[in-house]
């Protein structure tokens, strides 16, 4: 389906240089695990891949073409799942998901809710949800909106075992259809994909030398 790769990547978060000289490659059907201690830049790398953080050094490409030349297309082909759940308490569960589907240009909110067992709660105002339910509502975007590239930052946080299994099934289903997944996850067995160890690319501000103040 696609090839997502980066070479010589360097970026910083706030005023801390996080990584430098990083290479990665993910193909259709692949899963890339981001592994490393806290602060090694897993979240930063995911945000750089999404385009939220600028690429300070190096380049990111999709199917060989630099992402910087087609930012709109890149945003349209990915779903990013961060730490926060992006849920408005005053809207119902269904309204929350339907909004993100519309913003993404199309999607099936009802199917997404059903996949993550939220259908019975569809009309409940979202402020009544538990932490695990909020997480599932955020994850429901994966099932509702079609996108080739999934960038997941600790997707299983606050989930119970049953919901974790649903997430695993979704990831498997996505990969089987040729989708790409990049995931930072604590405590997940990384045996079924490639692993990227981030602390080997660690850098601090002094290494970055001239350009950054």
């Amino acid at each position, binding site marked *: 389906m696609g090839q997502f790769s980066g070479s010589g990547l360097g970026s910083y978060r*706030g*005023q801390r240089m996080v990584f430098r000289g990083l290479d990665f490659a993910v193909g259709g059907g692949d899963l890339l695990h981001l592994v490393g201690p806290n602060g090694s830049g897993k979240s930063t790398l995911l945000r750089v891949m999404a385009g939220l953080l*600028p690429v*300070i050094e190096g380049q990111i490409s999709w199917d060989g073409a630099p992402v910087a030349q087609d930012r709109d297309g890149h945003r349209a082909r990915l779903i990013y799942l961060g730490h926060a759940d992006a849920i408005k308490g005053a809207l119902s569960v269904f309204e929350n998901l339907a909004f993100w589907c519309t913003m993404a240009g199309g999607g099936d909110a009802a199917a997404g809710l059903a996949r993550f067992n939220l259908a019975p709660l569809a009309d409940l105002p979202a402020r009544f949800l538990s932490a695990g339910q909020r997480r599932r509502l955020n994850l429901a975007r994966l099932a509702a909106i079609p996108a080739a590239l999934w960038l997941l930052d600790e997707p299983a946080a606050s989930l119970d075992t049953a919901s974790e299994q649903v997430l695993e099934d979704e990831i498997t289903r996505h990969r089987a259809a040729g989708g790409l997944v990049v995931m930072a996850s604590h405590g997940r067995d990384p045996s079924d994909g490639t692993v990227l160890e981030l602390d080997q690319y660690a850098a*601090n*501000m*002094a290494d970055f030398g*001239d*350009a950054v*103040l």
Partner: protein
Amino acid sequence: MHRFANPTRFLKLISALQPWAMGVSVLCLAAGLYFALIVSPADYQQSETVRIMYVHVPASWMAMFCYSAMAGASAVGLIWRHLTAFVVARATAPIGAAFTFLALATGSLWGKPMWGTWWVWDARLTSVLILLFLYLGYMALEGAFDDRSRGARAAAILAIVGAVNVPIIKFSVDWWNTLHQPASVVKIDGPAIHSSMLTPLLLMAMGYTAFYFWVMFVRVRAEFNDARIQALRLRQTEA
């Protein structure tokens, strides 16, 4: 210009230029003040109070010049991500604010004997007052973030948005009926002012400009030294 995105190279350049800026500034201000206060003629209507002009007018020019420099440096920093440009913009802001305040204060002191009032809400004075608020807003925004680079970039956007005020100030005396006198020096037909008054005016303007560069260089070097000290301290704790 891109050569000087490298902080070390930029610092070398301004360290070399700094003594010259100081020298030109002192000489021009001394000569300018001599011509302004002693040699130039007193006005037939205002007598000696016209001499405030030699402090007031160049200060107003500098107020606009510094803002333009700040907005220009901000644009360079945003477009090319040259962090040295943000340092220059940050260093310029308080100097520009001081010149603006000087212009407003000396203008007020001049206005009392000349127009009979300390202040009037005409287009020129109001837009210069807005300029002062823009400077203060820039400094407030820049310092309001824990992450310094975020503050620099947000303030850069503000500087560019406010730049629309500078042409308004310049042309306000032409577009509106103002109490403030119309342009006499920077006009399409050339200056409408006699050389005995133009010379001290230009000398003072040059002195103020050199002064700006001198102080800006000092501030930029101080900021880089600060950053170096911080980096050294951080490295000590990690070692």
